[in-house]
């Protein structure tokens, strides 16, 4: 479903989305909270019908604070948490005429890439319920793919928008770090977290970006860079565009269907006048992506989530004294996978380890970003397959183990988080009925260029607006 498919009747739109969401819940398990939209509908009706998202029901990842609406981040410890304020992006959505219709499932606190680790249970892939949606923004990806919503918000710390977008066959977009305010977004790792969106077409992603982007004084890392008219300026002309194919990724992928699909795409882009060249980065450097990411992300996370202690809000487990209350609440409130990440993060910050783990990871991050910038200085975008396989089954995927086979191919999109560069996954076809996605990354604040190339890819694949019916 595309934004343009929705009419201006807010009630009808909300009714339609909520009924489809309810109907899909058994199959997808993508929703944490169905929102009572009555008050929001009243507010929208007072607004100008020409607003870009007038009457659009939106699915929102459950780590984005919604005033008066339970926001759990799919963690037990926040199961009863109702924010007293709206995240900046929610205020932006509402001002543009949108309605928050559902809160969607995610890997607990954003920690994971499978959506298997959500307090409400795993989310299933709309194309094959036996397979994973990917994560951590799995619920938002699945609902967009199933045509339940035209727009869903997600967050992306490693590849948490772009990977599930690939597995579910939708557009998944995270703009430059600082382009969209993070105020009110329950963090995973502050220096890597991005807000972004899922849509069924590139144009809708452009519309959404224009609504969500802009400086917010409550987020000191948000940018003063002027916001573009991305949808209006969308231009799929590729003549003279320089696209680098990340050889390290493509050379390590063994899935024939994915390789074939990718090569065909490259030929089509060339036919449109683009210059497509293979570029190889230092392999050893790229092998550090995952450990560098994990060390930085989890160090920041263990501090970020120290506020979740069951004392002021959230689920409290009683204890004899304050320390026991905190220990009990945190032990029971988090899954073991999350607690493991806290331990890892804490470990890398200890005085005796900090220099050789956390500080070193930060230094390597700088080296990686410099190398990546070096590639991008000669190209408009870097292109690679978003994943090394189509959506796996739960038992074939594991967030806890590092995969030697796909150390680089499965984790390269972290480059977009370490650098903060804008990055988008675009559907590129199917293999045995399962979606294949490609990922494009551009220079900082070069969102327009990125969306333009994505639009050209979409025109070649013919997958604009593609969704799958799950209620058949």
């Amino acid at each position: 479903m595309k934004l343009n498919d929705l009419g201006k009747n807010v009630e009808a739109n909300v009714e339609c989305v909520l009924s489809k969401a309810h109907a899909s819940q058994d199959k997808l398990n993508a929703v944490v909270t169905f929102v009572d939209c009555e008050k929001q509908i009243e507010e929208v009706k007072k607004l100008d019908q020409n607003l870009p998202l007038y009457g659009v029901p939106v699915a929102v990842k459950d780590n984005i604070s919604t005033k008066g609406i339970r926001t759990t981040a799919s963690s037990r410890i926040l199961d009863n948490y109702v924010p007293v304020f709206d995240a900046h992006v929610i205020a932006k959505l509402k001002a543009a005429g949108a309605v928050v219709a559902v809160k969607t499932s995610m890997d607990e606190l954003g920690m994971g890439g499978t959506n298997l680790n959500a307090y409400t249970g795993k989310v299933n892939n709309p194309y094959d319920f036996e397979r994973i949606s990917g994560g951590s923004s799995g619920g938002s990806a699945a609902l967009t793919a199933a045509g339940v919503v035209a727009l869903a918000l997600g967050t992306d710390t490693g590849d948490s928008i772009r990977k599930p977008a690939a597995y579910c066959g939708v557009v998944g977009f995270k703009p430059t770090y600082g382009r969209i305010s993070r105020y009110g977004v329950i963090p995973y790792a502050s220096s890597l977290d991005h807000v972004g969106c899922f849509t069924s077409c590139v144009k809708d992603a452009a519309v959404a970006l224009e609504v969500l982007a802009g400086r917010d004084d409550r987020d000191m890392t948000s940018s003063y860079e002027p916001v573009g008219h991305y949808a209006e300026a969308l231009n799929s002309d590729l003549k003279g565009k320089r696209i680098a194919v990340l050889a390290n990724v493509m050379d390590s992928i063994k899935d024939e269907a994915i390789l074939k699909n990718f090569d065909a795409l490259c030929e089509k882009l060339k036919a449109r006048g683009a210059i497509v060249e293979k570029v190889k980065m230092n392999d050893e450097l790229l092998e550090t992506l995952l450990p560098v990411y994990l060390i930085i992300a989890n160090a920041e996370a263990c501090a970020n989530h120290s506020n979740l202690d069951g004392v002021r809000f959230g689920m409290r487990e009683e204890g004899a004294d304050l320390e026991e209350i905190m220990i009990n609440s945190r032990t029971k409130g988090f899954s073991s996978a999350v607690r493991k990440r806290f331990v890892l993060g804490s470990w890398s910050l200890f005085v005796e380890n900090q220099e050789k783990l956390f500080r070193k990871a930060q230094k390597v991050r700088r080296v990686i970003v410099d190398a990546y910038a070096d590639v991008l200085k000669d190209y408009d975008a870097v292109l690679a397959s978003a994943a090394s396989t189509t959506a796996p089954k739960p038992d074939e995927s594991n967030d806890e183990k590092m995969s030697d086979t796909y150390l680089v191919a499965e984790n390269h999109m972290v480059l977009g988080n370490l650098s903060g560069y804008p990055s988008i996954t675009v559907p590129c076809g199917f293999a045995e009925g399962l979606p294949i996605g490609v990922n494009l990354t551009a220079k900082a604040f070069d969102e327009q260029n990125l969306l333009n190339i994505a639009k050209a890819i979409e025109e070649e694949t013919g997958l604009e607006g593609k969704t799958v019916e799950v209620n058949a």
Partner: protein
Amino acid sequence: MNFETIIGIEIHCELKTNTKMFSAGPVRFGAAPNTCTNEIDLGMPGTLPCLNMHAVELAIRACSGAHCTIDPLIKFDRKNYYYSDLPKGFQITQQFHPIGSNGYLTIDTEAGKKKIRINRIHMEEDTAKQFHTANGTMIDFNRAGTPLVEIVSEPDIRSGKEAAAYVEQLRNMLYYLGVSDCKMEEGSMRCDVNISLRPYGYDGYGTKTEIKNLNSLSNVQKAVDEEIQRQSKIYLEGGTVIQETRRFDEASKTTISMRKKEGNVDYKFFPEPNIFPIQLDEAWIKSIQENLNEVPEQRKERYMNQYGLSDYDAVTLTATKELSDFYDEVIKHTNEYKLASNWVTTEMVAYLNKEGISYEENKLQPEHLAAMIDMIIKGEISGKQAKVVFEEMMQGKDPKVVAEAKGMKQMSDPSAILALITAAIEANPQSVTDFKNGKDKAVGFLVGQVMKASKGTANPAMTNKMVQEELKKR
């Protein structure tokens, strides 16, 4: 004394801002519990810090007053620990890059001036306040996120007296520069003292103890002196001092152990990712420094060098900022510096103390006092009359209006006085004879007659002088 005392002092000082260090939550002392908080102060998920630039300005003032080198690149770090008074589970502070370093203050000691070096001044946020009651611990989050500077001295202090002098000097400086209201008893300025002893001539340091939360200058001195006694007694008896945190018990006037320090806690400091390093504009720093209020020393110098006041008067006036602020207002309207100082430091202070009136409630207008002083100088009213006028001025009244209403206008017109003198001499010819015969009391008699005739308004000094001149002429 058998040992040399080594003292270093850490001061936490709340900055005088309207809002918190990293949020728009209001800063108000004494507000109802938990009414000055927002989602940021309570550490709600998803909230982010936003730096209060006014707090940075005040920190720059503090650094300038303490002669510190200012780092124009502002960076913050997280200090991680779990406690109920710390909503986020970490405190945002400046561990690695304090805004100020390598400063000093000069204190007066019996042996003369002494420099106390300041290691660092850094910005951070305050914690919530806890109240331990029989029914459990209550937490007031109003204080959570209040801007602080922490000021850490080098171990240059050698006695309780020096410690108190240092804290007083620091307090005056911060107060004069408008950095903080520095109310130790309300906790807006908190003082922790580290003390160790060592034999004279020994270069190393002994085991130190830390006395926390001293809430007055006199307690700083008492606690330090007491702790010196305690530690030297232990050493003299062959014992060892244990590294620990102690508190000063006012009732028993002793220091009491709070907790042993078993190794250092690892706070896992790391750079705050939500605040990028901020490069301050050098011109902005300069403009803050150029517009600093005077510190007490500068005021004292001005009073002595420009106005010719005595050291005693200058010290008295600058003892509190309010008093010298008032004096400065008065002397905007009169050049009678010494007289103005006398009226401000004696009559006004005595009146305020007697009536229990604070400086904020003081109704005396500086320009009224200046006007009255000029009336005295011009001889329009007598010193005696001035005291009556002053009482009325303390109610906010204008001295000219008071003098007028009470008919106090002193007669200082020489021709008018001369007319009264001539009349008095003519009515009492005997007095001329008495005067010629060397009887001085004739002068007093005639002055009395003139005063009587003028209903007490004749300028006594002028009258006295003119009577003598007239008598000599006869």
